[in-house]
């Protein structure tokens, strides 16, 4: 039987999404460098890519960090291994500086591409998550294209937790699993959300990884048990 601990993502990344009220034009690479939030070299040259900076929206890549900001949403992400935890620091410190930014909600996300040992394992995951017998005679050759399950996270303060499963577009044969844990505050309260980010980042990210591995292990284990 495949153990959850044996299943390690081939590719993974993380992102933080904040909902509130933002001034996108502030978020220029040089601003991050001036504030000491990124390496100076990451805010210039090839490491820095400005896609757009407008009063309505900013989209930039600074070193390993990619971010998109509009007037109501700030999203920062990375797939660089050395920046998976630094992303949290970047976001926390950004809004520690912009301390009067109204924030109302936050999403902590992880996406993972798992390589399956065989095509058979790959199909078994889809079949276990979405049994195809239901579709007999309705459509030919049904396959799982996307599945999203929402519920509450484990822990003392359960939060909305969403898991998405799709075929991987990057690893063949592979399964893509994305998780999203949502945090909300009653009133606009940036310090509370930032404290939640600081305190929950590690456990949320570790939990997402463990959960994804366990989900795949269960899919594959049930196949083995049934055989």
């Amino acid at each position, binding site marked *: 039987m495949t153990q959850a601990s044996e299943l*390690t993502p081939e590719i*993974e990344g993380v*992102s933080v999404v904040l909902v509130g009220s933002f001034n996108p034009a502030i978020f220029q690479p040089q601003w991050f460098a001036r504030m*000491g939030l990124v390496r100076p070299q990451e805010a210039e040259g090839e490491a820095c890519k400005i896609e757009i900076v407008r009063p309505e929206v900013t989209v930039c890549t600074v070193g390993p960090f990619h971010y998109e900001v509009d007037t109501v949403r700030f999203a920062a992400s990375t797939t*660089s291994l*050395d920046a998976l935890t630094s992303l949290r620091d970047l976001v926390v410190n950004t809004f520690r500086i912009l301390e009067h930014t109204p924030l109302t*909600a936050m999403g902590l996300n992880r996406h993972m591409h798992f390589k399956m040992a065989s095509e058979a394992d790959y199909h078994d995951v889809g079949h276990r998550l979405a049994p195809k017998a239901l579709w007999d005679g309705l459509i030919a050759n049904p396959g799982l294209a996307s599945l999203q399950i929402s519920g509450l996270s484990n822990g003392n303060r359960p939060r909305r937790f969403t898991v998405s499963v799709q075929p991987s577009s990057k690893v063949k044969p592979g399964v893509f699993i994305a998780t999203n844990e949502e945090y909300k505050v009653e009133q606009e309260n940036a310090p509370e959300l930032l404290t939640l980010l600081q305190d929950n980042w590690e456990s949320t990210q570790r939990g997402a990884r463990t959960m994804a591995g366990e989900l795949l292990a269960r899919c594959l284990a049930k196949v083995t048990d049934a055989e």
Partner: protein
Amino acid sequence: MQNSLVYGHEFEWLQTNSDQKANSTGSSQVATPIGAKVLLLYPDGIRLGDTTCDAAMVGGQQEGAGLFREVSSKSLNVPRPEYARARPVVVPPQDAARLVQSWEGTVVDVRRGKLIVRLRDLLHQQRPEERAEIPLEQLSEPDLPLVAPGAVFYWTMGYQVSPRGQRTLASDIRFRRDPPWSEADLRRAEARERELDELLGEPSAQ
């Protein structure tokens, strides 16, 4: 009639380089007059808002020099669904990377070209803290000014996998970058100190 325009961040964002000169991508492009109404859309059609084409958008060149994809004016009536959710974002593609190990480290001391550090396993919470020595030469140059006792860093090991499938074991160390304490931070810290003093029954220093 003024043109109505669309660009999305995946395919038709207004591209600006560090000189703020604009260009665009896409095949069906038309000249955009300054003052034309421009519609900002996400690639999935979600409306971000309206703006007006200005000199910065056409690269400070003559009117009409900016190139954007033309759409019918009906597109300006695209409904705005509820998109301001804490949803995941699309991450730009890159070479595959497989995370093998990740630690949070704290510098205890710097001796004879080596960091003496404490390491906490970020992937396996139950593992005990470890001590290690890391040669300074393993650090990236921009991080050297941050090296001091108490500094926090992240040490990650993983396989970089090239598009051809070649695996390379990579070890990366990135130091935490904290902004300097602001006046407000100091005021909050002092207020917190006073609160704790009162709670513990000790007189405040002030």
